[in-house]
């Protein structure tokens, strides 16, 4: 893959659907014969898929309630009790 390093930016644009058509076709030709680049495409793709699969954390309710109190207090210090 040493000679394939020039493909890395193209690989990422390819995965993200940002590579122009002509370069896409050339890269796909290369992928047919280069196992390392094929694995690179697959594992870079999976890296983002796995990151996106993570749980969508929310600010805990008790923290949100404390936050609102603190912000209201700060607000009153700045603006008075409008």
């Amino acid at each position, binding site marked *: 893959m040493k000679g394939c390093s020039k493909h890395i*930016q193209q690989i990422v644009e390819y995965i993200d659907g940002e590579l122009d058509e002509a370069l896409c076709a050339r890269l796909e030709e290369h992928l047919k014969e280069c196992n390392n680049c094929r*694995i690179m495409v697959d*594992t870079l793709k999976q890296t983002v898929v796995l*990151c996106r699969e993570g749980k969508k954390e929310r*600010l805990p309710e008790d923290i*949100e309630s404390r*936050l609102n109190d603190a*912000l209201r207090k700060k607000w009153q210090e*700045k603006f008075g009790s409008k």
Partner: protein
Amino acid sequence: MNEKELVKKAQGGDFEAFSRLIESHKDKIYRLALKLTGHKQDAEDIVQDTFMKAIDALDKFRMEASFGTWLYTIALNNIRAHAGNKKRADLRPIEEYLPGSHDESNDPGLFDWGDPHQVLEKKQLNDLIESALSELPVKYSAPFTLRYMEDMSVKEVAAMLNLSLAAAKSRILRARLALREKLSDIFRERSNERL
């Protein structure tokens, strides 16, 4: 009421308008801080500090960017300041994440993951990702997270982090390569254990 009207009201001292402005950003900023620091307590502190600073600086907000972008900028400064106390090794140049970049004869080539869900449970995978991400320097993990977990375009990421488009692209790619490598090492190890 649109965002501009809410901002004007908030700048005039209307707390309810400010509350409405920050409502949809609380969870997003919490998630971003949690991903980049890896600690709930730190993330909670960063959220509170971000909104406190937003109140302090509200008069200076000129609506040149969206209110959300402005809040993110404050949050990211807080996260950077927080991370400044924890030194992390810089990432290697892009080419060094590619096989064959060191000693060709000892290079095992790239490891084919197959389906990671067959190797680890979802919870283990989530924990692994969170830990790997929080170990990266913020200058890489922030653009990566904004790009792929908050679905911003590279242009938006560059603008938010005050980077050139090329620098934003490069940092996102280095983070992605570093994460890929960390995960690959773990999956390879697990696979060897199973043999």
